[in-house]
């Protein structure tokens, strides 16, 4: 299984769009789980520090940051496919 993890904030207007994109991507592929974390929360702050997040939405595939800011669906898909292959 590969995890796509989206880090977002409650007031970020780009984050809902990015979340829809991630969910849609996951629905069309096997072996994908989606995790969504609001970095405004204490739990979220741990990820901010761990991955040195400076902008939302930030998307991780596994442990790797693959997208910062509004994501590009094509490059996000290829990052997920690469992670699935490995």
């Amino acid at each position, binding site marked *: 299984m590969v995890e796509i993890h989206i880090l977002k*904030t409650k*007031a*970020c*207007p780009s984050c809902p769009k990015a979340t829809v994109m991630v969910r849609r991507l996951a629905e069309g592929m096997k072996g994908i789980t989606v995790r969504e974390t609001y970095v405004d929360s204490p739990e979220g702050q741990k990820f901010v520090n761990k991955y040195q997040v*400076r*902008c*939302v939405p930030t998307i991780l595939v596994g442990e790797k940051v693959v997208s910062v800011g509004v994501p590009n669906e094509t490059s996000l898909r290829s990052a997920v496919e690469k992670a699935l292959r490995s």
Partner: protein
Amino acid sequence: MPEEIFDCIIIGGGPAGCSAGIYAARFGLKTLLLSSPDTLSQAEHAADIENYPGFKKIHGAELVAKMREQAASAGVKIADAKATSIIDGKLKTVHTEGKHYSGKSVIIATGAAHRKGGVPGEDEFAGKGVSYCAPCDGPLFKGKPVVVWGGGDSALSYAVYLQGIGCKVTLVHRRKDFRAAEALVKKAASSGVKFTLERTVAEIKGKKFVESVVLDDKSVIKVSAIFISIGEVPAVELARSAGVAIDAASFISVSPSKATNVPGIFAAGDVTVTPFRQIATATGDGTIAALSAFKYVKGG
């Protein structure tokens, strides 16, 4: 299948566009609102809004989401599509990437984009500590020193918001006086925001991420982020494609009824020549534009 013809096509999904949509639909106009999926209105970037009637305090993104919801409920067809050109004719044709729509009238409410500072380091550190949206990225810098650059309502509300969530804010503004509302300036001062006035940002420096901001007097402020809020640039390319008149400062010239020089094309909100750019004034503009479009379509 015959082509679907709209009475009114609104371009822009911010406060002006949504308000126009609500009025146009309620007046019985078959209305389409085109909202670019990769462009956010200035209001959506706003921190806590405390001057829009009906809401004591609300995030900009939440307010605009409510406006869109209300427009959809009123009967506006909303499409996530970026308009690329308007061709004027008996019917106006609005082209998007891959589609086109025909309408009897058009309201341009494309708003304005944030103005960039144009200083070294700004592009290099975009998303790495350079931000134009405090409510979006602010929570990533809790407890850390940050600079807010600007002196208008937006900059002051960013400063108040960031200080409130635990950032240590220095506000850099080129003048001694502020364009912002006095209430906001007082709130910023009382909340602990440090003012560095009659100074401007000359450079943003760092290694992997932003580490410092250099001012025009060579002084250095060590920070983790800089939030830039120094004004806006109107989005008028679409208007130009239809032959709409633009003034010397690049805003759309409109009459008091929000009519442009092109019959049937109206404009509203931040993209127009207006003395004030507030959410409340944008919604008012949208209302006037919609009522004028109604009159135009019905031949009044």
